[in-house]
């Protein structure tokens, strides 16, 4: 039979193979997407939540832990010495350089609000042990944070993250809402 050697025929068959495998691969990928995506946070989990915190009972030097979007958050009322220590550190010398002023709201320097999960592997630093820099010491692998929640020593790569939060009165904040722009500037004055 001549047609086994017919170039046109061979090409057509090749085309069918390639097209069929291509479609199958595309189908496999399309099928994989829902199966992978179902593991991502569901809609109810994603529904953004805010947490209101009453600051009235927090005394200077004290730190409380609240839950916001399933994560623990430290709200710490810093003493004047702690604020000064945080401001006096040369920023370039930090592993994750950030000035204290970029981590607190101006006029409200007393209040430090940071996500409590260590940026190493997620443990919650010990409130009882302030570590070598007066902030927190993570018990898991020994990361030391300073009084601005910045990483100073240990395996954690980043500073404790600062969530968005807004003062709704002098003694109340809402975590999860952007600070009112006017409030920050007037209060700074």
């Amino acid at each position: 039979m001549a047609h086994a050697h017919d170039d046109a025929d061979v090409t057509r068959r090749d085309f069918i193979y390639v097209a069929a495998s291509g479609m199958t691969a595309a189908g496999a990928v399309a099928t994989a997407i829902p199966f992978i995506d179902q593991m991502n946070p569901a809609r109810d989990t994603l529904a953004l939540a805010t947490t209101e915190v009453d600051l009235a009972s927090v005394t200077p030097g004290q730190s409380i832990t609240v839950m916001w979007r399933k994560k623990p958050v430290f709200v710490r009322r810093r003493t004047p010495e702690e604020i000064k220590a945080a401001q006096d550190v040369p920023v370039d010398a930090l592993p994750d350089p950030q000035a204290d002023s970029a981590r607190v709201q101006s006029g409200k320097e007393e209040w430090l609000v940071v996500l409590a999960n260590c940026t190493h592997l997620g443990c919650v630093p010990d409130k009882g042990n302030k570590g070598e820099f007066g902030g927190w010491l993570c018990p898991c692998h020994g990361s030391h944070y300073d009084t601005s929640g910045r990483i100073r020593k240990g395996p954690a790569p980043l500073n404790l993250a600062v969530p968005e939060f807004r003062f709704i009165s002098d003694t109340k904040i809402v975590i999860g809402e952007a600070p009112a722009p006017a409030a920050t500037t007037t209060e700074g004055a």
Partner: protein
Amino acid sequence: MAGDYKYKPTNGFTRWLDSRLPIWRMVDEQVLNFPTPKNLNYWYTFGGILTLMLGVQIITGIVLAMHYTPHEKLAFDSVERIMRDVNYGWMMRYLHSNGASMFFIAVYIHMFRGLYYGSYKAPREVLWILGVIIYLLMMATAFLGYTLPWGQMSFWGATVITNFFSAIPFVGEAITQWLWGSFAVDNSTLQRFFSLHYLLPFVIAGVVILHIWALHVPGNNNPLGIDVRGPQDTVAFHPYYTVKDGFAIAVFLLLFFYFVFFNPNYLGHTDNYIPANPLVTPAHIVPEWYFLPFYAILRSVPDKLMGVILMFGSIFVLFFLPWLDTSRVRSAAFRPIYRQAFWIFVVVCLGLGWVGAQTTDYKIFDLGPKTDVVEQIVEKAKADNVTGQALEAVRTQAEEQNRRAFDATDLGRILTILYFAFFLIAIPLIGVVETPKALPRSISEAVLAHGGSSQPARPQGAHA
């Protein structure tokens, strides 16, 4: 080699079955009469022990799943109910939790055995790789299972281990949230972990079948590390090794049941009897003992990403072992230098395990005061006009508080370097520089030299 033995059906029924589903042929050729080297010692019984332990975990696990509730609000209490109210529930749980530890004791002995007798070398590379895959699956399964009781260690272990993936640049955070199904470890995480914890043991069972298949193509290695040359070197698996394995299993079960019935929480952590609390991390979190060496490697690296890479690398290096080894001689019995390196490696692994259990700043040796810091403090005191006795007091106090020490992290660093040096330097190099001892000509010759009987140890008719 797998041998020349062939099954012959003996009656009408077996002949009929053999031409339709040759299952008895498989049992007869691959199990009962499988030609097995005469000289296997007790280190070779751990394969059988592992198979048994997989069965124990699957059976007790299915029983536990009948009473367990995978929900963040109910899981802890459902496990307590298993312990207090379900008939023999305490026994099922203690068999399962201690069974996991026994499984790991057995797999570590099994792996060190392979390392000692060179069982990973040609023609058994695929067999070895399948073994490493089983080991990885076991670790995943045990980690997932440990989160299920939803105690403090469950929760924080899950948090720390899933956070390994947050070290991946750019996509790390997306991956961890995908693993959690949330912004932190929570109920979504628990439910998927339960689903996967149920699944993986059956995947392990599948890979075990491939592992045994890959074993039965070249046949067993043996303590001499030389090839089987013919029927005089082998005995049938049954009854010779069924009995030897059976005896080893009985002894192993004594150890297992000692823990289950007399010391069931010895290998666990008391913190796991405290319900999970996402607000507070226990002061000293440590993984289960079988993960400690890897945990020590992770902690000995001051950088997050590098720590995670080295930790995974310490296991992945095993995949390349067959090609890292430059020596053709398998058994360490004939490799004087490798044998020493092997034992140092065993000590290194145990040392890493010890380091993993300590706090990072656990002081091993005191190296005296940090003189520069002490001097600074004293200078400052002098500047403040402190003198005489008071100054001496300042100095003593400063010397007490600022001490240099060789701590657990330092030891961990040294051991981590030695761990990798064993695989990446010692193994390739020793094969080149070492002069192996003379190998015996055959297994049977070596066995007989030790005063064995010259009777062929083979049941009647096993070799046609």
